[in-house]
């Protein structure tokens, strides 16, 4: 595949080439804005230099000259620094050097596990409740005030109450994810179910479908696209919630990592942790959309 062919008219790779170009421009801008001037020893006394060295601001390079300590930058780190940090962390992704320091591979797994348990639990509850509410106008109107009251509450606000009652930090983090993923799925499911085209319901009446068959064969597949739309929203909301939940509960995971790096004012580490969360979220969302594809249908 030659470059000419890629950028030729109508090539399906053209948009991705553009993505790369944009990425390159962003990286250059980032790099340029975080560049620090080289260290100039002129103007500092011997004592000053010694104290700066003691404080770790400057170090001696191979030729014995003073340079800014590359491990200690006061400005926001540039892409090179973040890349080094990423390589460092990814070199031993499944190491465990102690109770509080597990490799990034483990941390991602812990976060994922917490996230998936809470998300799946919420999905089951939300879909069942959503369907029940969607099928009954009375129920919908009766429960609506409660739903509207609870929906806007940030999932993190539930955390102290949950920790106080449940006590176990792992269950609390799972429940925080649960609270975050519940509402969008429930609302979308109820919406999907209540808006099923009348024709499908008429046909199911006509062929005398029993209630179970009707649910399984008609209502579920008919509302599936709406349910999945809700799931994808919930998904984002849950991922957003799991990170601070980990920070607040001290549970090992990617959120915990960004907190710990922040404690050490290692901004490169924080950026790296952010990127990991973003990447994991991207992969999961991609997987979910692939699953959703199986259940979507076009009407016309």
């Amino acid at each position: 595949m030659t470059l000419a062919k890629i950028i030729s008219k109508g090539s399906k790779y053209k948009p991705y080439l553009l993505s790369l170009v944009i990425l390159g421009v962003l990286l250059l801008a980032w790099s340029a804005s975080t560049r620090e001037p080289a260290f100039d020893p002129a103007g500092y006394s011997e004592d000053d230099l010694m104290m700066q060295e003691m404080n770790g601001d400057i170090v001696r390079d191979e030729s014995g000259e003073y340079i800014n300590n590359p491990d200690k930058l006061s400005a926001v780190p540039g892409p090179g620094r973040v890349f080094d940090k990423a390589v460092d962390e990814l070199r031993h992704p499944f190491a465990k050097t102690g109770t509080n320091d597990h490799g990034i591979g483990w941390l991602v797994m812990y976060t994922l596990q917490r996230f998936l348990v809470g998300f799946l639990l919420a999905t089951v509850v939300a879909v069942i409740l959503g369907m029940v509410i969607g099928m009954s106008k009375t129920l919908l109107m009766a429960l609506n005030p409660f739903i509207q009251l609870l929906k806007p509450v940030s999932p993190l606000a539930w955390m102290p109450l949950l920790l106080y009652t449940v006590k176990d930090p792992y269950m609390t983090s799972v429940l925080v994810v649960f609270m975050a993923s519940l509402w969008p799925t429930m609302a979308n499911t109820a919406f999907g179910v209540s808006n099923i085209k009348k024709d499908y319901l008429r046909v199911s009446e006509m062929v005398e479908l029993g209630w179970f068959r009707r649910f399984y064969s008609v209502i579920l597949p008919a509302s599936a696209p709406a349910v999945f739309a809700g799931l994808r929203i919930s998904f984002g909301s849950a991922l957003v919630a799991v990170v601070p939940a980990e920070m607040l509960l001290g549970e090992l995971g990617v959120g915990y990592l960004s907190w710990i790096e922040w404690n050490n004012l290692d901004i490169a580490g924080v950026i790296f942790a952010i990127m990991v969360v973003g990447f994991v979220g991207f992969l999961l969302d991609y997987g979910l959309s692939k699953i959703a594809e199986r259940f979507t249908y076009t009407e016309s």
Partner: protein
Amino acid sequence: MKKNKTMNDPYDHTKPLAIGHTHQGAPLDEASSEFVQNTASEFRQVAASSSKPCNHTGACDCQSQADAPVADGHEAMVENLVEEAVVRSVFPNDIQRREFIRRVGKGAAAAMIASFIPLGDMKAWAADPVKKGDLEKTDLSIGFIPITCATPIIMAEPMGFYAKHGLNAKVRRASGWAMVRDWGINKEVDAAHMLSPMPLSISMGVGSPQVPYLMPAIENINGQAITIANKYKGIVKGPQDMKGFRFCVPFEYSMHNYLLRYYLAEGGVDPDKDVEIRVVPPPEMVANLKAGNVDAYLAPDPFNQRAVYENCGYLFKLTKELWEGHPCCAFAISQEFATTNPNTYKALFKSIVDATYFSSDPANRKAIAKAIAPKNYLNQPVTVIEQVLTGKYLDGLGSVKNVPDRIDFDPMPWQSMGKWILSQMVRWGQVGPEIDFDAIAKKVYLEAECADMITELGYKQKKANYDKFSVMGKPFTPDDPLGYAKSFAISRV
């Protein structure tokens, strides 16, 4: 001390041992059992009178976390001590014993005795006395906050102090005091690093559910500082210049809060009206200082030194200048755990006191800094920790200071300290004035138990008593803490 290899020992030292049994399987008869017990206590006395366990001479500079300097010399020492103890038991009369040994030679004396006493068993048993003492629980989890105050608790893991006393303890890092408190109350951890007022407040049910808590040992004394943002260099000279400042402290029930308030109040500044004091987790304080959200803080190290390292703050005052030898952080454990697992509790207590004494020795500070700086523990640059622990540091004002006891470690939980803390809690209205100061301090601060533990480990108490001390020049009256609380110009009681 060398291993006595000439002794013809028929017993297999590698096999595990049950108390009261010989390797040949037959249980010891009553007389022999009793003898073994006596020998064991003899051994303890001998051990107590010998020097510290580490057989590295001079400044112990063990660089590796893997080889704990303590464990190495231990085994060899124990073996010889057993032999000595056995001989002493057989010949309790000193003169008789010396005569016997002189005639026969120590090795032969031991060999002779070995023919009817399971020496090998006892050596193995004595080498792990606590293990054989039925530890209820050996896998422990201990919560900590990543600050240098908890140095003994933290370094006891990589440097082998828990292992030495038969425990498999792992220290688990929390990100805030509320978290550590909740972990303790919910039994997520078996014991925890806490601020010295916290065992008192938790036992009283102030600011948390009421759970009876104990403080068998103090972690550190001194070790805090007032750090001020660089923009105030040369401007701030005392409390009067701090009016309108935004301060941070790590927790309401902390020495940091009480010392800061005391300092401000002495300068005529009301801590609730003239300044703003916010509770912020220690790691966030530096970032806040850098961002200009706060003007100063009284925090645990390494966050004072870290502000200097980040070139955003300077060390205005060490807290040791306010109260030399003030308590700061604590080793805390629930009463429930201590009563249901008494042997484990004792072993843990020992590990902590042992670790505390090791930490207080200036010769060990550098090695400790290296051991606790990594990501698994404090997650700070080594130079920052080193400056705090060794007391040779940059103060952020252009000089290098040398204050070796900038932070120090002394486990004694003096009840008078507890009463001072209670008096300040009353002074600032955190608790009502009708509390029974004596009873609470006595129940929570285990002065006598710690003293026993220190002796048992063979150390010497650093102070004989702590009845008289002054804070910023004003003496504390332990027999009338309420009066003391009322005696200040600025006080809520």
